[in-house]
């Protein structure tokens, strides 16, 4: 077989592999053109099946009770284990997941949560600024939900917004007062 034939065969193989990989790994339900690559609907399995619905919805725990940093820093930050233990020293200690959590806590270890809302390294987002902006009286109760969706109804946390640049800019353009639109606002 000549080199040319080999190459042709290789092409064919690659096309097949590409199709198989592409089609099988795709969740068609969430497929929308224009949102390719933005991970909308991303809801990975977490090491501990933490339910926002249970905590923030049913038990009405405030977002800021756990995400303490959001008012002070750029990251909202996943709560440190000692915050979980404020309740779970006593609450639901019969559940296997909670026992796992306690084990980790007392061993001085941590939990490797899977990151859901991810911005590339070249994008700098500041939670503090946005939370302060949205905590105007009329927005107070939608501050987090504006971008993160109805977290209180989610059993598994899921990315609702595309987090694309266009999505950011839309808001920066339409809100009143307008958000800054310089490139260096987010990229530096």
């Amino acid at each position, binding site marked *: 077989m000549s080199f040319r034939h080999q190459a042709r065969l290789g092409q064919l193989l690659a096309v097949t592999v590409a199709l198989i990989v592409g*089609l099988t790994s795709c969740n068609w339900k969430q497929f929308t053109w224009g949102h390719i690559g933005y991970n909308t609907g991303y809801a990975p399995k977490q090491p501990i099946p933490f339910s926002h619905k249970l905590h923030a919805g049913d038990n009405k725990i405030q977002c800021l009770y756990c995400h303490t940093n959001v008012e002070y820093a750029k990251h909202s930050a996943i709560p440190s284990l000692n915050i979980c233990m404020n309740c779970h020293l006593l609450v639901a200690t019969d559940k296997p997941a909670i026992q796992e959590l306690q084990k980790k806590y007392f061993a001085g270890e941590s939990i490797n949560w899977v990151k859901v809302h991810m911005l590339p390294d070249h994008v700098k987002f500041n939670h503090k*600024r946005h939370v302060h902006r949205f905590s105007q009286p009329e927005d107070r109760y939608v501050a987090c939900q504006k971008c993160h969706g109805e977290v209180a109804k989610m059993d598994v946390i899921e990315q609702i917004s595309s987090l694309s640049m266009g999505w950011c800019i839309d808001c920066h353009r339409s809100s009143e007062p307008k958000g800054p639109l310089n490139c260096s606002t987010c990229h*530096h």
Partner: protein
Amino acid sequence: MENTPVDTPNQYWKSLDEKYQTPEFLKTLENEFASSPLKSEDGQDGLARRQFMKLMGASVALSAAACVRRPVQKIIPYNKRPAEIIPDLPNYYASSWFDGTQGLGLVVKTREGRPLFVSGNAEHPLNGRGLSARASAHILSLYDPDRLKGPIFNSVNPKKRRNSLRADAKWEQIDAKVAAQLKKGDVALLTASYPSEHTQNLISSFLGKFSGKKYVWDTMTTESLREAQKISYGSAVVPSYHFDKSLLTVSLDADFLGTYLSPVHFTRNFNLSRNPEGKKMAKLISFHSVPSLTALNADDGYQVAASQQLGLALGLLQRVLAGKGSGLTAELKKFALTDEQLGFENGTLTTVAKQLLENSGESLVMAGGIQCETANAINLQLVVNWLNSALGNEGKTITAQSSYQSLEGKTADIFELMKQIDDGKVKTLIIHDLNPVYSLPTSLGFEKRLDKVEMVITTSNWMDETSYLANVVAPAGHPMENWNEFEFAKGVHTIQQPTVRPLGDTRSFEDSLLMWAQAAGSEITPEKTFFELLKKKVSGTVGSEAEWFEYLQKGFRGQVAEGGSARGLSSAAASQIQPVESKVEGLELVIFPTVHMTDGSLANVSWLQELPDPVSKIVWDNVLTLSPKTAKDMGIKDGTVVTVEVNGASLKVPAYIQPGQSNKVAGIALGYGRQAGMELAKNVGVNAAQLIQAIDGKFQYAGQSVKVTKTSEKIELAITQGHNSMEGRQIVAESTFKGYKDGKTGIHRHQIFSIWGQHKYDGHKWGMSIDLNTCTGCSACMVACQSENNIPVVGKKYVLQGREMHWIRIDRYYSGSEASPDAVFQPVLCQHCENAPCETVCPVLATVHSDEGLNDMVYNRCVGTRYCSNNCPYKVRRFNWFYYDGHHRKENLHMALNPEVTVRTRGVMEKCTFCVQRIKDSKNTARDENRSLKDGDIKTACEEVCPTSAITFGDLNDKDSKVSQMFASQRQYTLLEEVNAAPRVRYMAKIRNTDRAMSNGHHGDEKHAPSHDAKDSNKETHT
């Protein structure tokens, strides 16, 4: 990393990638031309890869629609979050750092428990907010991948020591072994000067327990100075110098702005007396053998050989005394040199002496540093003392108050130690804070004597030249990991707080002493750790627990003593001056320290290796500097390899032609040529310490006869500045003090107009002013910028191709004759032009104008056409030709990265952003505090560490801001005004306090054509 110093050949390398054999490098070997990202004959491999990418693109598009995301990242929260840490909010700690002779008060910025950036402690009485390049860079040595991770035990059999029978050990094992050895007594401790009374007390108690003796030696010696002070004034101190009170400073080869004693403090003070707007402006006259930073900043510079220093000083003294109505003894007169003998213009010495006399009590004569360590080193200092006393400077510009009392190194100690070893009186040798095998010449035989000691212990953090020969390596950790308290200058106490938990299994020297004493059964104190001991002592002085914390917060206590009376010059001092006749024929050697390398202790810090030497602008190499005339006579060109021979010791080193150097001198820098433990610094340059001569119990660094022989080899030197001249354009403007008083600024202004509309700025309008008059070229800003902005290091190979990545560079221009040029330093960074030439040519809008006047660079948009760089008249844009960021990813080095700044990757253009992340931070703080930004809230990294505040950043829309006021000064000008890019950065013309006529680069104050003239010199056409 392998720490074994294997002496295999072919260890040379040109770039960091090659050094670390990164996959990228290996790929470049087979794949790429250095200058083009793609091979011209794109091979089958490339084709196949592209085809594959095309096809897989479809697959990625499909799969990325929702469910699969790569890479999956993890978030790992704290187990218990420390109360003081909020992820991504920085904490600041006051601390300090002692660098050989210089002590600096620091503020260390940490994030999530790791130090990221150091700046000066603004209130500190010595350095203020200023820093040296080394201080900014020493943070990287904390993360040095070559730093030892724990103690190491070498074979005890002295004969087998060199077989590197090494084992990583546990501290308990080490302690047991050391304790057993200590019990035998006869302990010697070799250390450098260390200005901590707590450490010193501990050392004395420790040595007391084991009938030990302390030996102190400094690589940057101040011994002659102290000895002369003792003869002249009765006490052996390093006095404090008050440059702010001096109107005329005469430096006899003392590089006080660069390397001598406490350069940051001196630079800061020196600048205070150099305001050209005032009635008087201080003048600096330099007599130098090899141009130093001080020499290049001098208003008038003269070349002398090292052997002539004493004769010159005596010549000055003779004339000063004559002015006072007395004279020298006939014996000394014989040695006083005349203008003719020195090769000066007739009347030079008389003029200098006259000026000194005119400024009696307000002048300062200074000599010192290793460049002055000749046979006549003490005599020179005695004459300098005499001069200062005769001029009435003593007690005014030189005081014994706030002296640098802790500097106590003695050469005699080295000889005494060697004698004790020879006599078999040293069973245990502890070496701390020194690397004698590297810093002393082999001919001295110190290295061989280590074999005669039963146990050699070193506290080095690297498997360096000394560690390699020691039995026990007990790494003391980085200063940022340890507690201490220093008294840099008498009365000024500064705390050294650890800002990170030890990264490896290291233990401070003091803790080791405590542990060893305890293990040997002779406990020194009931306190278990040095910190407890320190806290108890210091709390005893500062008071309650609350006051202790207050002290920690402030970082220092005490002030530099003011006033004081003049010490009387001992009448016997004159008779102690016994000049030694110089026997030099032909060239003489001068070993000098450089601003970035000095003793070589930070040689493994890539930022410093790639920092262009402020004088020669050479990176990654040391050279033999020769004057243009000498080089021409010998037929030597830049990079010609020469053999340097001094009394049998010889080195092979490339030559470099250094304008402004004495024709009789060959100079070579210390601090290069590391052989072991430091992978990055290994074989970079040669170790000039091998040429140090031990004569009559003294080390002579200068004034020895040297034989320089040309070889046929040639090495290409990586010099970051190809041009030393301005090519007839006005890039730097300068004027004389007299001329300036007559309204001449040396600035040629152009009439310019633009057809473009103007940008509107409703909010802020950022601008920067750089004062060339106060910039000394110390290069601290370059390293600070590198630290703040994650700027990669590229290695010698790529610097040779002009691919260095510094966002701010310091150009050094010479003017005048080659033999004795004037120099101007000019920091150049992105000028953030109003009519930015880069913005108009970017095809993808990756560089755009912000509504605050910044020239934003958007890395993720950049496709790497490099049009912007091509179109930039200031050449400040830097392109990532390869994965230069790769070396950041190595082991701990990634921890030095600033998370606020994107790490750029291959194919992306980058440049100065005016530290936009700092602008944003300050804005955020102001908004949180419900106020508007104040002038001075935002300090760019370069501005923050500048010892002379030459850089000022601020809002031009705020008419009261400092930068607005500077923009209104008549000294301000823009770079290449005629191309009308309308830069946001403006320079302030340099004012030289000299009587000579200045040769100006451009047209000077002359006007070339009437039509081309500025009608209004301060007219601002575009902003």
